C-alpha cells in the first residue's frame, strides 16, 4: 500500500462484507420459503425477502467496486486520492441510504413505502432490482457522482495506465446506464426494453470492464508479469466483452414484444459472450504460470484464478445454455434463469471483489499477506463457497429442466404450482447447499481474524 | 495478354473474372446443385486468394492459415450441406 489514502477502501470492504452476509441470510430465508410456503409469513413475505436479497447483492458489489477503485486508482496513478474525506462521507451516505431502504422494505408494506417516499412524483419503483424508492435512487446518483468526481480528479492528475483508463470507463459507464432506471414509461414493452439498458449493459457490459481492470491489477501485483503484456490482453478481453455484450442485449428481447429480428441478433451475439470469459481464464492461468515472483498471498492468487474459471462457467457456459432463441422459448422465466443468475453473479463479480479484498486487506493492515494458518482457512472458505455455489446451480438447473419438461414441453402441461410441487426435492437440496455457502462465507470472515506468524509488510 | 508482374494485379484479375462468372451464372438463372457448387467454388477461390495473397497469410505461421482457410472451408461445406438438405 503505497499511499495512505488507499486505506479509505477498508470501510467499503467491511460494509460490503456486512451486506454480503445479510444477502446470504435472506437468500436462505427465501430458499426455505420455496419449500415451506408460509415460512415467516406475513412478517417477511417472499417479495420483501427477495428485494433485500437482490438489492443487498447489488449494493455490496457496488461498495466492493468502490473500495477496489479507491485502493487501485491511487496506486496506479501514483498519486494520493483527491479527497479521502469525501470518500468517507460518501461511504456513510451510501451505507445509511442502503440501510434505510432495507428498513423501509421490512417495516412497511411496499405500497405504503411508495406512498410515503412520494413515488407518484417520479414513479420508478416496482421493477425488478430497481425497487428502491425514487429518493434512494437519487441518493445513489449523488453518491456515484461524488465517487466519480473524487476518482476522476485523482486519475487526471496522475500517471495514466490502461488499467486506470479501463476502470474509469467502466465506472462512468455504470453511472450513465443507471440513469435509465429513471425512465419508466406507461408502455410495458418500452419499460422492459430500456430496463435492460440498466441491468444487462451493467452486468454484461461495463461491469466486465471493471472486472477486467481489477483482475488485471491483482494479477500484475501477484504474478509480477510486466504491465505491458497484461494491459494488451486486458484490452483484447474487454473489446470482446463489449462487442459481444452490447448487441448481446438482444437475448433479452426475444419475448417481450420487441421485433423478431432480435431473436437472430440476440442469439448470434450472445453466443459469442462466453469468448471473453474464456480468454480471461486463459489469460489468468497464463500469467500465473509465467509469474516472475512468488507472492506470499497465495489465497488472493487462488481467488483470481477462481474468478476466471467460475465467471466462464457461470456467465459463459450457463449463459450459453439458454441464450439461443429456440432454447430460450422454453426456458425463459424458469429456474434455468435462476441457476445462471446465481453462478454468473458469484463467479464473475462476487469473486473478483473478494479477490481484491483478499489481496488488499492484509496490505492495509500492514503485512504482505496473512499468516499461513489464516490463508489455509481462507482457502477452505474459497472451496466451501465455490463448491456450494456449483451445487446450488446444479440443483436449480435440474429443477429448471424438470420444470421446462413438465410445464412447457410436455403435451399435457402441468400448472405452475403443480410443477413446483414436483420439483420441491431440488429446492430442499439447494437450501442445504445454501447453508454450506453461508458456512463458507463465515469461514472467509473468520480467516481475517486468525493470527499466526507475521509476514514482512 | 502478358500476365502482370505484380502478384496483387494477377489475383485481382482472377477475382474479377470469378465475380463476373458468378454474376453471369446468376443472371442466366442457373439453379440446382451444380450451379450452387460452381458459385461456391468461385467464392472459395476468391476467399483463398484474399486469405493467402491479400492478407499475406502465405508467409504467416501455419496456424493462421489453418484458422482462416479452415473457417472458409467449414462455412462452404455447411452451406453446401444445407443447400443439399433444402433441395431434397
Amino acid at each position, binding site marked *: 500500500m503505497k499511499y495512505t489514502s488507499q486505506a479509505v477502501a477498508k470501510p467499503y470492504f467491511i460494509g460490503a462484507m456486512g451486506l454480503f452476509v445479510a444477502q446470504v441470510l435472506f437468500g436462505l430465508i427465501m430458499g426455505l420459503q420455496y419449500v415451506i410456503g408460509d415460512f415467516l409469513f406475513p412478517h417477511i413475505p417472499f417479495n420483501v425477502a427477495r428485494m433485500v436479497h437482490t438489492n443487498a447483492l447489488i449494493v455490496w458489489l457496488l461498495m466492493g467496486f468502490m473500495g477496489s477503485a479507491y485502493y487501485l486508482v491511487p496506486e496506479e496513478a501514483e498519486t494520493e486520492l483527491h479527497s479521502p474525506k469525501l470518500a468517507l462521507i460518501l461511504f456513510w451516505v451510501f451505507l445509511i441510504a442502503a440501510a434505510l431502504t432495507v428498513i423501509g422494505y421490512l417495516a412497511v408494506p411496499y*405500497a405504503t413505502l411508495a406512498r410515503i417516499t412520494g413515488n407518484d412524483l417520479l414513479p420508478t419503483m416496482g421493477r425488478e432490482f430497481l425497487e428502491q424508492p425514487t429518493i434512494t435512487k437519487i441518493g445513489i446518483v449523488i453518491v456515484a457522482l461524488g465517487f466519480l468526481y473524487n476518482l476522476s480528479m485523482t486519475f487526471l492528475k496522475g500517471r495514466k495506465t490502461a488499467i486506470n483508463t479501463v476502470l474509469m470507463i467502466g465506472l462512468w459507464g455504470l453511472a450513465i446506464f443507471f440513469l435509465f432506471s429513471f425512465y419508466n414509461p406507461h408502455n410495458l414493452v418500452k419499460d*422492459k426494453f430500456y430496463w435492460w439498458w440498466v441491468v444487462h449493459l451493467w452486468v454484461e457490459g461495463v461491469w466486465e470492464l471493471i472486472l477486467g481492470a481489477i483482475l488485471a491489477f491483482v494479477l500484475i501485483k501477484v504474478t509480477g508479469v510486466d504491465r505491458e503484456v497484461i494491459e494488451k490482453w486486458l484490452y483484447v478481453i474487454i473489446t470482446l466483452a463489449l462487442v459481444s455484450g452490447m448487441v448481446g442485449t438482444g437475448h433479452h428481447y426475444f419475448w417481450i414484444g420487441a421485433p423478431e429480428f432480435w431473436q437472430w441478433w440476440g442469439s448470434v451475439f450472445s453466443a459469442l459472450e462466453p469468448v471473453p470469459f474464456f480468454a480471461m481464464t486463459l489469460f489468468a492461468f497464463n500469467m500465473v504460470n509465467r509469474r516472475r515472483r512468488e507472492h506470499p498471498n497465495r489465497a488472493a492468487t487462488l481467488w483470481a484464478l477462481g474468478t476466471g474459471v467460475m465467471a466462464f462457467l457461470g456467465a459463459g457456459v450457463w449463459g450459453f445454455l439458454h441464450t439461443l432463441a429456440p432454447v430460450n422459448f422454453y426456458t425463459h422465466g424458469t429456474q434455468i434463469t435462476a441457476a445462471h443468475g446465481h453462478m454468473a453473479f458469484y463467479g464473475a463479480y462476487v469473486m473478483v471483489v473478494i479477490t481484491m479484498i483478499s489481496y488488499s486487506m492484509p496490505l492495509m493492515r500492514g503485512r504482505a499477506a496473512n499468516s499461513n494458518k489464516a490463508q489455509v482457512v481462507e482457502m477452505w472458505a474459497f472451496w466451501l463457497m465455490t463448491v456450494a455455489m456449483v451445487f446450488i446451480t446444479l440443483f436449480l438447473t435440474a429443477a429448471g429442466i424438470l420444470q421446462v419438461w413438465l410445464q412447457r414441453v410436455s403435451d399435457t402441461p402441468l400448472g405452475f404450482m403443480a410443477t413446483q410441487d414436483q420439483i420441491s426435492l431440488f429446492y430442499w437440496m439447494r437450501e442445504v447447499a445454501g447453508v454450506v455457502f453461508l458456512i463458507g462465507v463465515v469461514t472467509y470472515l473468520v480467516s481475517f481474524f486468525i493470527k499466526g506468524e507475521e509476514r514482512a509488510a | 495478354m502478358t500476365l502482370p508482374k505484380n502478384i496483387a494485379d494477377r489475383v485481382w484479375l482472377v477475382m474479377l473474372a470469378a465475380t463476373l462468372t458468378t454474376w453471369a451464372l446468376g443472371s442466366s438463372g442457373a439453379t440446382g446443385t451444380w450451379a450452387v457448387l460452381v458459385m461456391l467454388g468461385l467464392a472459395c477461390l476468391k476467399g483463398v486468394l484474399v486469405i493467402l495473397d491479400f492478407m499475406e497469410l502465405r508467409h504467416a505461421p501455419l496456424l493462421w492459415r489453418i484458422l482462416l482457410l479452415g473457417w472458409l472451408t467449414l462455412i462452404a461445406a455447411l452451406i453446401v450441406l444445407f443447400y443439399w438438405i433444402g433441395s431434397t
Partner: protein
Amino acid sequence: MSSTFTTSAARNIFYGGAVFSFLLFLALTFRTEQVLPQRDQRAQLDNPQVVAGKRIWENNNCIGCHTLLGEGAYFAPELGNVYKRRGPDFIKAWIKGQPTGVPGRRQMPQFNLTEQELDDMVAFLKYASEINTAKWPPNIEG
C-alpha cells in the same frame, strides 16, 4: 509466434469496436422503436385504467413473486397471459381472497385493493396479455 502485438493497436481496436457495437445497437434500437407500434398494443394505453393498473402492479411489487412476460421472480405463476388463462373474474376473486392460509403453501399477501383498483389491475393484465410476444409462452400454463 512471430507477430507484433502492441498495446496501442489493442487500445485503438477497443475504442473502435466499442463505438462500432454501440452504434450497431443504437441502429437496431431505432429500428425497434419504428416497428413497436404494430406490436405493443399502445392504443390500450389511452385507457387510463391500464395506466393506473401498471402503477398498482408496481406499487405492490408484484414482480417480487411473479414473472411478467417471463421476467421477474420465479416464486409464483407467470401473469403475462393470466388474463387468457383465468379470465377477469377469477383474477379479482383470487386477489380479494388472499392469503389462503393453507399451511405450508406459498402465501400471497392481502393488498386491500379497492374495486376500482382491481378493475385497473385486470385492465393492465389484459393489455399485457395482448402484446405480441412472438407466441411466447409455449402454452397457456405460462
